[in-house]
């Protein structure tokens, strides 16, 4: 394998993402699949901010993803038919919920933290499921759709034209990825790495560990709720499955599959996972078994993920 310089790799990834609507159909994909990969990649990258760079395991990110989605859907449907307004509400709701729950669990560590994120993740599932008058329970929020974006001088029709929706998603994805990269390179991001590597030593250095973990958690959930709003816009629909625990597991497996210790890992993991899921669920009714088997195989044979393996190869 030829050695890839980091900058070349970045340029290659952006070039592939920018041209995706044109080559995806050539290789048997479709444009919506590209949008879905970007959305899940953003969610997995957001999770990886916490998992890979802070060393804290959350199995409940679907809750904030789903809150973003529900916030968007309900705002556009009931309050004000505008895509940016819907997204704003979704992001605020998701982040605010994460900030409150973060306060409750930030003192916990390891398995205990993971278990509490799982349990708290289900609260919102039950609320969405039970609050029938607002969310229509299991039937989900339907009978609404994303609105064209009015920029003043021109309108972008993200509703009818799926290519312009893809580029809309890509713009949001690029802004978020840039922000995540910026945060990771900042002193704050370096502090998170220090906590991941040795929490006790970080504490001895006078770093307020709990506060940093809380901030990392809220930032991570902020980006995951952005992904959630895009998810609602993609489907023009949202139901409680968006915030169920299996969704959280999907985010984690994407990050692990691609490589937790690398920036682009979750993107690659999301692409592999979604293409595989798309293929398997069109081939067989028992796709759940195959996805489950896939989880098991990844854990047993690819715990470092795709990029982890490549990096090891090139290093040796």
């Amino acid at each position, binding site marked *: 394998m030829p050695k890839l310089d980091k900058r070349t790799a970045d340029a290659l990834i952006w070039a592939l993402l920018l041209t995706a609507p044109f080559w995806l159909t050539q290789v048997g994909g479709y444009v919506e699949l590209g949008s879905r990969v970007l959305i899940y990649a953003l969610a997995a990258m957001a999770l990886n901010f916490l998992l890979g760079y802070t060393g804290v395991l959350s199995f409940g990110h679907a809750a904030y993803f789903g809150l973003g989605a529900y916030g968007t859907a309900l705002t556009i449907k009931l309050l004000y038919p505008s895509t940016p307004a819907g997204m704003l509400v979704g992001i605020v709701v998701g982040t605010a919920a994460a900030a409150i729950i973060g306060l409750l669990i930030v003192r916990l560590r390891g*398995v205990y933290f993971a278990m*509490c994120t799982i*349990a708290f993740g*289900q609260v919102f599932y039950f609320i969405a499921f039970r609050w029938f008058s607002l969310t229509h329970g299991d039937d989900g929020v339907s009978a609404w759709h994303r609105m064209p974006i009015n920029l003043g001088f021109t309108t972008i029709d993200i509703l009818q034209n799926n290519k312009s929706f893809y580029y809309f998603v890509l713009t949001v994805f690029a802004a978020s990825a840039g922000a995540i990269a910026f945060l990771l390179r900042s002193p704050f991001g370096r502090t998170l790495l220090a906590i991941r590597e040795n929490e006790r030593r970080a504490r001895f250095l006078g770093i307020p560990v709990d506060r940093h973990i809380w901030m990392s958690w809220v930032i991570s959930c902020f980006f995951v709720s952005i992904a959630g709003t895009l998810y609602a816009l993609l489907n023009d629909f949202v139901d409680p499955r968006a915030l169920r625990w*299996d969704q959280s597991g999907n985010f984690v*497996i994407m990050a692990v599959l691609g490589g937790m210790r690398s920036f682009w890992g979750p993107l690659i993991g999301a692409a592999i996972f979604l293409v595989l899921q798309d293929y398997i669920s069109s081939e067989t009714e*028992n796709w759940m078994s195959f996805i489950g*088997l896939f*989880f098991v195989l990844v854990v*047993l044979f690819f715990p470092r993920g795709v990029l982890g393996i490549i990096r090891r190869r090139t290093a040796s």
Partner: protein
Amino acid sequence: MTQLILFNVFNGLIIGAFYALMALGLSLILNLSGVINFAHGGFLAIGGYLAYTLIPYLGFWGALIASPFLVAGIGVLVERVLIRRLYGRDPLYSLLLTFGLAFMIEDGTRFIWGAQSLPFSIPSWLSRPLSYQYFFLTGYRVFMVLLVGAAVAGLFLILNYTRLGIRIRAGTLDLETVSVLGVNVRVLRNLNFGLGIYLAGLAGVLAAGMLGLQPTVGDSLIMPSFIAIIVGGLGSLPGTLLGGLLIGVASGVTSVFFPSASEAVIYMMMAAVLIVRPRGLLGEEGRF
């Protein structure tokens, strides 16, 4: 009104007994091996379905005895082949693996026994109400509470008076020392996993008699079991038992006044415990 409240308290007690059975198994595995077994609900479903298949051959009582042991056997095998490889690694991996297992088991039961809900017949003399005034006291429910009580008592007897149980408790405190003292830790963890899964299988047979059988039967029980462990305190089995009964009764009582909040209330209890006492009601200081 008193009757209604009594009815719901009793109902909550039964649900709580289920939670406790599930949560005790989860807790055993978590304490000794550090593995959160997401597939626990799946093993519960297997227990119910196996009993359904065995009833025509063994009758209800035979199935009630045989099915949990079979499930425990499957559990021992799964630990041997898959979970054993992940000890000592980041808990992330065992969580993902059992997560995948949960998917496979749910889909597998659907494949073998079908997606429709199956009827589960219990002996007719057990399903009769015991008294007219307290119509909800059917024989089966009382029997269930008694059986769960016996199982829990049995578990604590095993843990306190048998060599295996004492080793499990010692391993929970300090596995390395137990290993140095010449105990085969691999076998110990294997048997302990089987014991935890046995409890899930038993809960599965009992749940089948009450809730019927669907592939997702374990789903509704696993989250409350996590909460039971958190509320009761990680690392403490009596705590887990207390947590299970407590959230069961609390959701039962809440369903009298606000039926739609019966799930929300257990999450509020968890939040309250985490604020006031993050280690849980009976949890040890500094364990996690």
